[in-house]
Structure formats: structure tokens, C-alpha cells
């Protein structure tokens, strides 16, 4: 082991030689060191005196890509919530009011808050935004006295929700206000008192169960679209229009297709059968798309479920409990897709039902191999897709055999 002798005893022999050498070394190195520090006396110091004695104002010295406070230009925000999903610490909070698109706009944003006290300025929310509504500004001076003042509210008044922006087809650039203007207005003065938050009890009293005026009635809307879809079943472009109405229409690309047209066209052409790929649409779009798909397959619009007991007679079910669009046995089951579709059509359907991760867990080299096995080589074991898990297994049974899969 390296023994650690106190360094002073390790003096080299020839004490007088060492004595003189030490003195000379010290003198030489002090000479060098002192000359360096004195030379800095005669040079211009590098520091600049922020905030008041700056040669040029600090905002111009910051590079363009600086990630300061976030800013959302509500005029071009499509309410697709891609930024909310991309944020690792859920700093962005958006509340969306769904509408039927006729009396009330389809998507309205009731609340768009960003808590810049919690934000870590990582820039992950700016990337997925389809229209570039959310950007980092070059503002960084946000000293406030109270922690609660650190939330930027981009919807000024929650009583006037802002309708989502419908980008014109194929638009490349979107008009937006100069960067930083909105945030500068929103960042409060440093000594502003915090808003008077009501206590939990007061707010609870205020909570009213009445559905919001003009809110979307998912089940009714689903059946309407399903009926319309049946009429235009053959005419693919019209069918695509109807299916797109069921979606959120934000072209955010989360479903893997470039935009909503791509996804709805895939469903219309029968290439894609999964109703749950529209993330911004969430549960509502999923329910409506399921109603449309089932009605397309069975040719009959599903009957409205029994009205929930005690709901007001106005016939509008409370959106909280969307009628399960596919009452399992009530609708007459058509022949399973395996018989109705041609081999390559079926191949596409089965491939889509899988997770598509080519992980090789099903002992086939990849999903393509497994699908060919099922469609062409008559592979009967439909439960091998590990990443797909339970829902792939049910889809495969439904497509191939049209029955419920036996419990695992």
C-alpha cells in the first residue's frame, strides 16, 4: 500500500543544495506568477455591470436559441396538447371544451397555464408543436415575491374559451406575434401580490354538476356520424370526411400519420382499424370511431343505450358516462374478417393489430414473419405477440375467428 509519509520529512539529501534550490525555485515561480497578475492590472476587465451599466441591453446579447420563459401564441394553437404530453414534469396544463363543430366550435381551450416556476426549460415541448405556437422566448427576468405568481395564464379569461386554430391545408409558416411580446405582458411585476385563491371548501361549493352549454354529446354524435358513414359507405373520399369529423382535427401527427387526413383516409380505405390512435381526441374520438367502425362492419347503427336513470329528460346523456358504443351481444355479429377480406387485405389488418416492434419474442424474426405465419401458413397460436399483450390478442381472435379469446 502506498504509505503516506508526511511530505516535509522527505527532504532530499544535501540540505544546503536543497536549501538554495528551494529558494531559487520559489523566487523564480513567484516572479512568473507575480508578472502574470500584474499584467492583468493593465488589461480591460471582462465583466459587464448588469443590470444598469450594460454597454448594450442584455436581451440583444442573448443568442436566438436561448431557452427562456415559454410563450404560446393562442391564435395559432391547434389545442392538440402535444406539448402537454411531451413535458416530462407536466408543467403545461390545458383544459379543452369539446364541441359538436356546428353550434359550438369543435375544440375550445378553457385554460392554458404554464408554471414557469416548475419548468426546467428543456425545450421538449417546443419540438412536437405542429404550428410552432409554443416557443421559448429570450425573457429570463422573472423575479416575483410570491410563488403563485409564477404561473403564466395564456387564456386570459376562462369564461371566454379560445377556439382552436384550424391551419389551412399545406401551410408552411404560421403568422405569429413577435416573440416575447405575450410573455413580457404576462410576467408579473416583482412585488405584485398573489391572486386571492379561494380555499378548497369554497371552490367545492362552487362546483356545479350541470354539463357545460354546447358541450359535445359523444354517444349521440357517434351515432349521427355512423349513420352518415353508412350512406356514403362506397364513396371513399366522403367516408374519409365523415371519419375525420370524429377526430380532433389538430394534425398533430401523434397517430403516426402526417395529419388527420392521413389517419381518416387509412380507416376509410380499410388499411387501419384501430380507433384509439387519435391522442388529442382521447376517449371521445375513440368512442365515436368505434361506433363508426362497428356500424361500417355490421351495416347497422347501434341503438342508443338506455338513458341513464335520473338524467334530465332532455335526452342528453351526461358525457361522463359515454354509452358503450359496442353492446357486446345486442348487435348481430357478421362473419369474421378472415372470410370476408382477401389474403393481402387480411395481411394488412393482422399486421396492424400487432405492436410492430419486430422484437422477435414470437420466435418469428419480426412481426412481418408472424403475420405471414398467421395469414398464409395457418399459424393458430394468436397469443405470441408479447409487446402487443392482451389487446393485440383480442384483436387477432376477433379478426381471425370473430370470437372472444379464451382467458389466458
Amino acid at each position: 500500500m502506498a504509505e503516506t509519509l508526511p511530505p516535509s520529512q522527505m527532504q532530499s539529501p544535501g540540505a544546503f543544495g536543497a536549501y538554495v534550490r528551494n529558494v531559487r525555485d520559489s523566487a523564480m515561480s513567484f516572479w512568473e506568477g507575480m508578472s502574470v497578475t500584474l499584467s492583468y492590472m493593465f488589461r480591460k476587465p471582462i465583466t459587464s455591470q448588469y443590470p444598469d451599466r450594460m454597454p448594450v441591453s442584455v436581451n440583444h446579447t442573448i443568442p436566438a436559441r436561448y431557452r427562456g420563459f415559454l410563450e404560446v401564441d393562442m391564435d395559432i394553437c391547434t389545442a392538440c396538447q402535444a406539448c402537454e404530453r411531451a413535458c416530462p414534469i407536466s408543467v403545461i396544463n390545458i383544459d379543452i371544451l369539446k364541441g359538436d363543430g356546428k353550434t359550438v366550435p369543435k375544440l375550445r381551450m378553457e385554460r392554458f397555464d404554464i408554471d414557469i416556476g416548475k419548468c426546467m426549460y428543456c425545450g421538449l415541448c417546443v419540438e412536437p408543436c405542429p404550428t410552432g405556437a409554443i416557443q421559448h422566448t429570450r425573457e429570463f427576468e422573472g423575479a416575483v415575491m410570491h410563488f403563485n405568481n409564477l404561473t403564466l395564464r395564456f387564456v386570459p379569461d376562462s369564461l371566454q374559451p379560445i377556439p382552436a386554430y384550424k391551419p389551412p391545408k399545406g401551410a408552411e409558416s404560421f403568422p405569429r406575434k413577435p416573440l416575447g411580446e405575450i410573455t413580457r405582458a404576462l410576467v408579473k411585476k416583482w412585488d405584485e401580490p398573489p391572486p386571492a385563491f379561494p380555499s378548497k371548501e369554497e371552490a367545492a361549493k362552487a362546483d356545479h354538476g350541470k354539463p357545460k352549454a354546447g358541450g359535445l354529446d359523444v354517444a349521440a354524435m357517434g351515432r349521427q356520424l355512423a349513420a352518415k358513414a353508412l350512406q356514403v359507405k362506397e364513396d371513399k373520399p366522403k367516408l374519409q370526411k365523415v371519419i375525420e369529423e370524429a377526430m380532433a382535427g389538430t394534425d398533430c401527427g401523434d397517430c403516426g400519420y402526417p395529419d388527420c387526413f392521413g389517419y381518416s383516409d387509412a380507416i376509410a380505405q380499410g388499411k387501419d382499424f384501430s380507433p384509439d390512435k387519435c391522442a388529442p381526441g382521447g376517449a371521445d374520438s375513440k368512442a365515436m370511431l368505434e361506433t363508426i367502425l362497428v356500424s361500417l362492419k355490421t351495416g347497422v347503427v347501434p341503438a342508443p343505450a338506455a338513458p341513464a336513470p335520473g338524467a334530465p329528460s332532455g335526452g342528453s346523456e351526461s358525457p361522463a358516462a359515454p354509452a358503450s358504443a359496442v353492446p357486446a351481444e345486442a348487435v348481430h355479429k357478421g362473419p369474421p374478417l378472415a372470410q370476408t377480406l382477401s389474403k393481402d387485405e387480411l395481411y394488412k389488418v393482422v399486421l396492424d393489430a400487432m405492436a410492430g416492434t419486430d422484437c422477435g419474442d414470437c420466435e418469428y424474426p419480426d412481426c412481418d414473419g408472424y403475420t405471414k405465419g398467421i395469414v398464409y401458413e395457418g399459424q393458430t397460436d394468436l397469443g405470441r405477440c408479447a409487446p402487443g399483450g392482451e389487446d393485440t390478442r383480442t384483436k387477432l381472435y376477433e379478426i381471425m375467428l370473430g370470437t372472444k379469446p379464451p382467458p389466458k
Partner: protein
Amino acid sequence: MQGFLDNLIRSKGFDPATWQYTQFVYLAGMAAAAFIVINFAAITAGIFSWAERRVAARMQSRVGPNRVGPGGFLQWVADAVKLLLKEDLVPDEADKLLFRIAPYFMMVGFACVFVALPFSHRLVVADMNIGLFYILAVTALIVVGIIMSGWSSNSKWSLFGAIRSAAQIISYEIPAGMALMIPVLLAGTMSTQGIIRAQGGWPWQWFLFNNPAAFAAFFIYFISALAEGNRTPFDLPEAESELVSGYNTEYSGMRFSYFFLVEWGNMWVMSALAVTMFLGGWQIPGLSPERFDALRGGLGVVAEVASLAVFAMKTLFFVFVVMWLRWTLPRIRVDQMMNMCWKYLVPASFAGVLFVAAWMLLVNAQPWLGYAMRFTLTALGAVSVTLFALRVLRNIHDTGDKFDFTSNW
């Protein structure tokens, strides 16, 4: 000052020796002198703290305080007032009495030195014939204050700082004392004015360039003075990175300002003593002390002010050197500090004293030897200063910067 008071009494028509109130006049004179000297010490300490922060900043390519007053000059007033207004904490387990009086011990030790320190041709509080001996004796009081403050703060870190500082100051008294013996030998007297009179105005008449041992003695004294003032490279007691702030960690407010005052005031004392002993004090080149004494009236006042200016310039230069050292050198470890004192400085200073004694005999026998040695040493000094200046300019151009002493103050 006593002579001045005696003339005053005579002018009033009394004989100082027999008049019964002479003692009260002396007392009043001493009180006035004390008041002036302590205020001078406090103000210079404050100004040095501002000057050090500006010099340190400039050396670190920063700007330093320049907001309070012109160029930040009143920064030290702001600091002093802040320290006075700050709460004066006494840790509850501390030894209350010792904790409170420790800073006053240090203050006394520091202020008494000014009695024997000259300022100009006639301006000195008391030109005692044991001047140097008195100065060395009085600085010992500072050590008592430091140990008391370290021990009474009842914190391990303060104790560390105090013991380190005590070891350092006491052991460096010896090389400092011996190094100062050499000017005493050369001048033949211990009174500070006497030593200055023994030197001349021109550099080759200074004791610094008198002989190699005196040259070495100056550096030995300067290093020991650094150690006694707890200045880098010997700032072990207040080593920020190890002991946070050593013995004055627990102090705050007014008491901390005393520590603060003693540390920066000590810079003036250290440099003034070095200038008095080795660099010809207030001697004006070309004006011998005898002719200086003979001057009367307007010319006398002008010469007096000139001597004050010369003394102040030399002292301020060495204060700058002390600051400059602080912002260049790292810190020595405790055992290396002791090792350096007892193995390097003490033997060197003893050898120096012996050499000077022999040297004086030799010079008496062959006077030309003295002049030859003085001129060669002065030439050597001049050459090394110019070399250093060239080295500094090359440093600036090496890294592509420009010589710029005027912007961004």
C-alpha cells in the same frame, strides 16, 4: 511631540520643568495625539479595504466596487456603517467576558505601534530611543487577542484558527526581530527617526542596497511581517477553504469591524516599518537631514510636506505589493509554515547579522568597498525592475490582449 509641548508652555511664560500643570498639558497632548493616530489608523484601514477590493478585482479581470461614491471610494464607509448597525452576536456557550474583550486587546496592540512610527521629518508621536524595541514588544499583544477570540468562540474551527495564528505570529517574531537588527547595527541607534537619518535620499544610500545581507534581511523581514499580519501566503488562520474564517468566524457587527480594522491597518504598519528601516523613510533625495533641520518658515513647511509625501508614496507602494501577493500566491500548509520559519528564515537572519557585523568592520578598513557594493546592488535592483516590467508587457501581448489601463473602471 514632547519638545513641541515644552515650547508651547515656555511661550506661555512658564518653565515646563517646574510648572505644576505640565503633566496635565502632556496628558492633553497625548490624548490629542492618540485621537489623531487612531482615526488615521481606522481611516487608512478602511481605505485599504476598498483599495484591496479594487486591486484584487482588476487583477482578476473584474471591476470591483465602483458604485458608492466616485469610483466606489466611499464603499468602506458603507461597510463600516453596515458593520456598526449589524447585530452583535455572542454565541451562548461562548466564554462571554473573553469573547467581548478579545477585539480590544488586538486594537490596543495595533494602535500602540503608531506611537513610534514616523510619518515625516518632524511628524512622529514620540521619537523614543528604544523605538524599534517598543514596536516589536507591542505587536505581541495582538497574539493574546487572537488566542482569546479563538478560544472563547467555543467552536472547533475558531480554535484551529487561533492556535495556528498564535504559532505563526510567535515563531515569526524571531526572524523579524533579527532582520530588523541589521538596520540597527548599520544606524547604531534603535530610534526610528535615527535610523532614517542614518540613511540618505538616494537609493544607493538606503540600507536596502547597503550590503547583500541587508538586501536579504529586507526580504526576510517582509516575509515575517506577512506572517505576523496573517496575510497570504500565510493566511492559515483565516483559510477560507479549510476553516471558513478562523478565529473571527463567530464575530459579527462592531466586534468584527475591530478584527477587520487590525488586519488592514497592519498593512500600513508593516510597510511603514519596512520603508523606515530599509528604504530611507522620508529622506528627500538631495536634501541632507542637517540642512533639512536648518530650514525655517515657508520652505520648511514645503520640505515637511514633501517628506510626508515621499514617505507615504513608498509605504503605499509596499501596501500595493502586499495586496498583489495576496492575489497571486496559494497558501502554505501549517507544517511547511513552521518548517520555513525555523529552517530557512531564522538561520538566514542570524547569518545576516553576523555578516553585517563583519561587513561594517571591513568597510571601516576599506571605505571604497562600501560604495562599490552599494552601486552594484542598486544597479542590480534597477536591472531586475526593468526586466520585470518587460516581462509584464510580454505577458499582455502573449495572450493577444492590449495594454489598457483606462477603460472599464
